[in-house]
């Protein structure tokens, strides 16, 4: 089934899209709203399009991390930072520590 909303003489499809997707600046939004306030058929089509847009938004997942999952991920990030960014002191002891903690693959 094709879901399409036709445009009217005063308001085009792309104008309605721009409004719904918040791509209009304040002045353009006001102009658009003033057209809708006097054009009943444009308002009707816009409301149809708006309902479809809101329906579409509900179909997109908006998953949030649980506290535990966030903790685990942040710990993993810390491990990555430690292994990639850690700088060892340039003393003999530091160099020796860096040497001893390198894996075979890193060589």
């Amino acid at each position, binding site marked *: *089934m*094709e*879901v399409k909303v036709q445009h009217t003489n005063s308001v085009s499809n792309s104008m309605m899209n721009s409004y719904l*997707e918040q791509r209009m600046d304040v002045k353009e939004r006001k102009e658009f709203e003033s057209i809708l306030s006097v054009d009943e058929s444009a308002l009707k089509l816009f409301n149809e399009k708006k309902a*479809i847009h809101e*329906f*579409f*938004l509900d*179909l*997109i*997942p*908006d*998953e*949030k*991390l*649980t506290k535990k*999952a*966030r903790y*685990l*991920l*942040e710990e*993993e*990030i*810390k491990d*990555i*930072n*430690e292994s*990639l*960014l*850690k700088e060892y002191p340039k003393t003999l002891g530091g160099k020796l520590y860096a040497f001893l903690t390198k894996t075979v693959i890193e060589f």
Partner: protein
Amino acid sequence: MKIDQLETLFTPLVPKLFKFAFGICPDSQKARQLIADSYSVFIAREIDFIKETEFTKVRKTQSILKRFLLHGVLAEIYKLAGKRSYEIKPYLLDVQTEYQSFYSLSLSQRAITVLKERLKLTPKEIIEIVSLEKYQVIQSMYNAKESMVGMEVSGGESATH
């Protein structure tokens, strides 16, 4: 920049990255793995720049650095997901009915839809992340919407997949 300073900048970005990764792969553990692996690749590539960059408390500069980190890791997630499509595919077939139409979209359509509607990025930012032409991004946005709404309304198969 030191490790703790990098973490100060990066940690607040984790929820956004997860939203994106979950849009790519609907499994929490796999999505987290995608983020961690992409972060590794990104840091390994940008290690010199990160080490040389001075950490600052100036808000504007911090926000530029955060954007650099966010966009960089998002782009890596997208690239890595493309390479791991065979691993992700089984999870796409096993999603809740509520999001079936979304997960029947192609990888680029899912990525672009989440970047636009959930992360509220601009088309210009999306183009940078997915490395596609402007017309391809816009086409993807509209095809995704048409396909998802059409599929839900008809209760049938996706037309654009």
